[in-house]
């Protein structure tokens, strides 16, 4: 009897597919976090957005996204492989597995924005936005960094996407929420902020756990191969430690500032740690992951308070978690990264000087400016043609009934007055 063994490529493919499934599951995490942190009257709406944007991202990334991101072209974008016709895999695994993994990432970037623009963005506008970001905008940035584009050529390092996924999603959410303007009742005339409390903390907690779990696919899967196991192990432990440190730090800061260990902020801290460690996770030692996570836990609280101060209404903290910490994580590669762990230059703390840090800063800056400019235009165009925001009456009544004709909690009496 013939005995057949799995090949190295087979094992790598299995690993990447499992990781892709985990990253797909993060979609559920985003859905639960966002649903939990907003009011019950908009829950059906945010979940529909989270659900449909993955559908849109899948098709958009199949038709145009993959070609722009991984096709051959110039330093700015790729031009070959539309509809995967003649497309090549970006790793030593079959293209279909590689595509699925990348498509799940694309969906994550798209869905971050739903939270920042929650409770007032038109559903139709969201559908169009989600197709555009996943078919055109995200893949362009992806090409710069992962597809052999100009940032890749100058040595910019973003292992699993602090910039590519999280800064893109976070800053798209920032410009979107600025254009949308705050929710009714969020800010008083004197500029002070009101609490618009999330309606379901258990759902939000479940979402954070799912995201944390999914991140074990997001980061370790980005190795795209199993090898001798040492790299995926390092990435996994770093991912976990940064999340833990971020959660603890955010809890301490919020406890100190407001007198109570606010669970929603501690959970945002863990997410912040995960976002931040995403770029450096392969190039650092565990102690550095703890340090990066700790700083992230601090940044997320300051970020949320800062946004409220300047009256930018981000209902679930998408900008502070994904935008600000996406930048922090990317910069941290230039501080804690090590040549022996696969980075091109040593980071600042390992005697490499400012070279890598400078490249990281340049990459962040251009990506953030690119996103704010392009997504600003996209949102303005959507606003002009079909409108970005629902009417005042619809917002007050809730988007569940006005946009979907359906309640999230039929049979429950829900007090809707804001």
């Amino acid at each position: 009897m013939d005995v057949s063994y799995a090949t190295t490529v087979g094992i790598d493919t299995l690993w990447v597919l499992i990781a892709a499934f985990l990253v797909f599951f993060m979609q559920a995490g985003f859905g639960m976090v966002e649903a939990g942190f907003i009011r019950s009257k908009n829950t059906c709406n945010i979940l529909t957005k989270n659900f449909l944007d993955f559908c849109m991202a899948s098709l958009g990334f199949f038709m145009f996204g993959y070609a722009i991101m991984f096709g051959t072209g110039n330093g700015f974008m790729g031009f070959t492989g539309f509809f995967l016709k003649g497309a090549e895999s970006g790793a030593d695994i079959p293209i279909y597995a590689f595509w699925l993994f990348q498509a799940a990432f694309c969906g994550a970037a798209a869905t971050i924005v739903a939270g920042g623009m929650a409770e007032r963005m038109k559903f139709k506008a969201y559908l169009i936005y989600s197709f555009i970001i996943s078919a055109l905008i995200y893949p362009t940035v992806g090409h710069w960094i992962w597809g052999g584009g100009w940032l890749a050529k100058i040595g910019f390092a973003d292992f699993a996407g602090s910039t590519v996924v999280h800064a893109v999603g976070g800053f798209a959410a920032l410009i979107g929420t600025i254009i949308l303007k705050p929710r009714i009742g969020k800010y008083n005339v004197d500029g002070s902020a009101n609490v618009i409390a999330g309606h379901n903390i258990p759902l939000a907690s479940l979402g954070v756990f799912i995201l944390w779990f999914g991140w074990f696919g997001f980061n370790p899967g980005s190795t795209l191969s199993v090898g001798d196991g040492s790299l995926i192990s390092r990435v996994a432990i770093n991912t976990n430690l940064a999340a833990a440190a971020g959660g603890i730090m955010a809890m301490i800061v919020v406890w100190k500032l407001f007198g109570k260990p606010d669970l929603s902020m501690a959970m945002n801290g863990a997410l912040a740690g995960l976002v931040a460690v995403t770029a450096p996770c392969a190039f650092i030692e565990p102690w550095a992951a703890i340090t990066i996570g700790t700083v992230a836990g601090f940044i997320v609280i300051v970020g949320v308070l800062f946004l409220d101060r300047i009256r930018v209404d981000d209902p679930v903290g998408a900008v502070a978690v994904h935008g600000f910490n996406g930048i922090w994580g990317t910069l941290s590669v230039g501080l804690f990264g090590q040549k022996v762990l696969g980075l091109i230059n040593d980071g600042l703390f390992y005697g490499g000087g400012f070279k890598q840090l400078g490249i990281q800063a340049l990459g962040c800056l251009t990506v953030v400016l690119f996103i704010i400019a392009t997504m600003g235009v996209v949102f303005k165009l959507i606003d002009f043609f079909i409108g970005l925001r629902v009417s005042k009456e619809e917002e007050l009544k809730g988007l569940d009934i006005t946009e979907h004709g359906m309640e999230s909690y039929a049979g429950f009496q829900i007090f809707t007055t804001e």
Partner: protein
Amino acid sequence: MRLIIAMIQPHKLPDVKKALYDADVHKMTVTNALGCGQQRGYTETYRGVMQEVNLLKKVRLEIAVNKDFVEPTVKAIVKGANTGSIGDGKIFVLDLPECIRIRTGESGNNAIG
């Protein structure tokens, strides 16, 4: 003494509260209510099946006041809740024979204020 009961649109509650505070009325009870008047309901669909929702979400305010406070209170509620469209609600003014404050045992006009 009078008991004022008002049915208003839920999303007008913040405006009504503000108008009442401006009129120096600070005591009230607010409950969630379902009801219908002239306003038509809305339709929900669930798995393709249409459903007429006739009972709409309303907010019920109860405010007990002394006689001379009836007019300012009613005016404030109208000011806060009026949008000019069907569904703005109604205000009922009832006689209130007695009122007792549990903490002190006071009754009548003293207990209300």
